[in-house]
């Protein structure tokens, strides 16, 4: 499988096209692996679409009507996924990679949406900064996608993050047991974020976190005396990058480790995503899980 260079991908403005490329890559990488979580409890039929696994073709209907229908099972059809994309100002950070965290998050969100909708799963997509920028209720039809793509494409970095309050309020949108996908750089109070997400887990929701970071944020590849401007607060800070680099890296490593450790303990799926890594690889890995 040829991986898509995220930078090259970022040059493609059409999100749908990008998502197609990503999903094709994901599926190509997964063709030998069966989807998991397929229940044996039949739910309904749906028309075959290219790319569907032919093993689930209903041969009887094919024999009778010469039409291609797939058998769908109960669990699959019941999945509701709520994708929350952080669009705060800090997500607009590109660093030297050329792709912002928000763009990377958009791609992940869109690709996931497409994959889930292809499985007839209901997908809800929301974006938030200080508050929800938009909320698209869950639908399982593929026709749902243009709206989602349109919203995502027009989404731009917003204000400061009020991650916890947004999560707290978002609960009202989740009526049934769902999959909650958080795509964020988690720039906020770590304890509060973990606490808020644990709450959803406690409520028997599946929680999956895509922790999007720029490689520059981890490696801090700056040198010399530099003035840094906070993307969220616009505050400026003068410091000697060389001098604090080591300390900074330790702090960021601890920050990442805090989430990873806390989420592992809580059964929350945690994925550290660097914006220069291939989205399809990331998604493929998650699907294999």
């Amino acid at each position, binding site marked *: 499988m040829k991986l898509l260079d995220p930078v090259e991908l970022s040059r493609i403005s059409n999100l749908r096209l990008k998502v197609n490329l990503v999903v094709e890559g994901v599926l190509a990488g997964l063709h030998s692996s069966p989807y998991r979580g397929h229940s044996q409890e039949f739910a309904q039929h749906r028309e075959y679409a290219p790319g569907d696994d032919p093993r689930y073709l209903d041969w009887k209907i094919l024999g009778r009507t010469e039409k291609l229908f797939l058998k769908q099972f109960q669990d699959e059809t019941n999945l509701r996924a709520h994708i929350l994309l952080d669009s705060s100002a800090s997500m607009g950070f590109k660093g030297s990679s050329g792709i912002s965290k928000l763009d990377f998050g958009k791609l992940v969100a869109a690709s996931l949406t497409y994959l889930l909708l292809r499985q007839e799963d209901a997908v809800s997509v929301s974006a938030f900064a200080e508050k929800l920028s938009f909320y698209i209720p869950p639908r399982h039809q593929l026709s749902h996608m243009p709206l989602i793509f349109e919203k995502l494409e027009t989404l731009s970095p917003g204000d400061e993050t009020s991650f916890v309050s947004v999560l707290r309020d978002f609960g009202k949108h989740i009526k049934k047991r769902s999959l909650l996908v958080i795509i964020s750089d988690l720039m906020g109070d770590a304890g509060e974020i973990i606490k808020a997400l644990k709450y959803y887990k406690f409520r028997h929701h599946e929680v999956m976190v895509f922790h999007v970071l*720029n490689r520059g944020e981890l490696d801090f590849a700056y040198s010399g005396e530099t003035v840094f401007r906070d*993307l969220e607060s616009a505050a400026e800070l003068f410091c000697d990058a060389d001098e604090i680099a080591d300390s900074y*890296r330790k702090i960021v490593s601890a920050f990442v480790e805090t989430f990873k450790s806390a989420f592992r303990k809580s059964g929350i799926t945690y994925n550290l995503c660097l914006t220069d890594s291939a989205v399809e690889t990331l998604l493929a890995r998650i699907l294999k899980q």
Partner: protein
Amino acid sequence: MNISFLNPSVLLALPIAALPIVLHLIRKKKNAAVPFSHIKFLKLAIERKKGSSRLRKLLLLSARVLFLLLIITAFAGPRIQYGAPGRAEKNAELSRELVLLIDTSFSMRYNDGGKNRFDEYILKAKKIVSLLPGSARIGVIAYSNRVESTTPGLTNDKNYILSFLSQLKPTYRTTDISCAAEPLKEFFAGNSIADKTVLLLSDLAAHGFTAPFNYGGMNFKLLGFDNSEASNLSIRDVSAEFSESQDKWSLNARVFSSGERQYGSLAISYYSGMTKIGAVQAEAPKGETPVKPFYFKSTAGVVNGSVRLTGDNLQADNCYYYSALKPGKAALCVIDGDPGAGGSGSESYYLHTAFPEADVFGESEAEAVAFEKYDVVMLLNIRDNSDKYNAYLKNGGKVMVFLGNHSAGLAQAEFLPCEIASVFETPLSVKWNISPKDFQGFNPAEFESQNISVKSGYASTPGAGSAVLAAYDSGWPFLCEGTYGRGRVLLFTTTADRDWNNLPSKPIFLPLMRAAVAHLLSDRKTAAEPYYKVGEIVRRKSLKPVSITGPDGKRAKAAYFNGEYEYSMANEPGIYEVKADGLPDEYLAVNLDYSTGEDALKRFADSELREYWEGRFAGLLPAAGWEDELASILYGKELSRYLLLAALLLLIAEILLANPGVRPKELSSEKAARSF
């Protein structure tokens, strides 16, 4: 302690040292802000590094400022001087007053390889003058054993000083540094500044520091140039002596070798005038060594020339000049006690054959003879003693006595070296005790001396202080030598004719007689010895005024008064020709003065020098790299190189401080990705 700067104007650039601070402030303001996702981690990191960061920044800024300060200061040529606190502030000016004391003695002609020391030191003096700043006041004193020349005083006219130095020449005089005290006082007179620098350009040979230096309240810093102690050969005390018995001249010389160098065999050449007349090989162990006499014949009444040796680095003392007059014929007088027996076979006959120029008188005529005209008086078989003989001998006369049958009356003579008893009449042979070395080279064995037979003579006993030069078998003296007053006596205890012995008929007779006369005259000066030392004023009697031509060919009239001429221009060794109308030419041999040991180049030890200068001696400058050392002493120790070294260390420190973080081998992102 005082710090001075060779280029103080460079210090005007010191404000540049503040550049790092200014740049730091400017850069902080002008740096474009870099967008960053969230600065909360940066704040945390800064908080953690706050203490060490401030210190590091402070150190870094200090290092940069100090680096520039050191660089600028180094280019300003800082020098540190140590001295008494009260004088410190004046040192820079004090050091700019310098007197060059230049040794022009003949030992400075020593050739150290290529150039003689004098020329080397003149070059150094010129370089020193050129190194000094324009404000420096300089004086020069050239000295040997006297002050040769000085500048009129201290001056800052460098061109004049350089020209003055160019005109200086090494002399042939000895060294006596104490003579420089007076002109130094004149240089320093009326100057309120107590300290001075005196730079001594000398080989520092010990012979120049024998007389005490009269400071007269002067206080100065003295510097010398270190130089290696040299070995040296010189030839000394050449004398020309004429041997009347052998009718030839001998040149005698001594070689002096100082230092540790072993010369081995030396070539010594002998010159008559400018013509080389011979050469010998001689040894030169340390110290003084006499050289075997060199013999030559010359019919001239005056001989002059030189004895030279080759092989060492100080040529000036390798040549010694001589001049000698050939002695005139000895005046002889014969007093015969038996003149009646004259004719062939008489005593006076035989002696006349030996000395045809001798004047012969009878004993009765002796009272009328003026003995003082004669070099030797021969008394032959005389009857009576005379006070005249005693007086002659007391005044340094020489007497040769032959006893005979009339001599009984002479037995009581005081001047005889033997006590005479009776006449023996038994034939006896003669045993010779003569040493040729002590008897003008006469060797009896060469003349069939064993055939001498004496049938009659006087039995005698040698007196106190007398020497028996030949004796009979019986032990009685045959030939005895003694002194009386300032005179000398040779006594033959037998006759000078064949009545009592066969001596006159034997080949030994003539050589023995001539050797005996020469022996008696051996203490007579061979010649007038007009030997003078360089620089010595020549004063000699002359019947007429003289003009003198020196070895350089220049002719000058000597001052003349009261029958004596005076010549004060014998300033170099050589033969000086003295001419006067109607008088025979005269020659003066002028040589170096070795009395002070100028040819011994033993260098004064540092401790001896300090002792001589009574604590004023500051130090010796090394032969190589003396310029820096001199500058250090005159202007203080040069600090630039240390400052530059410190600046280099600061630069290294700055690099280390400016780049504190070493990138981890594994980046955080890689680590995170791996652990994920």
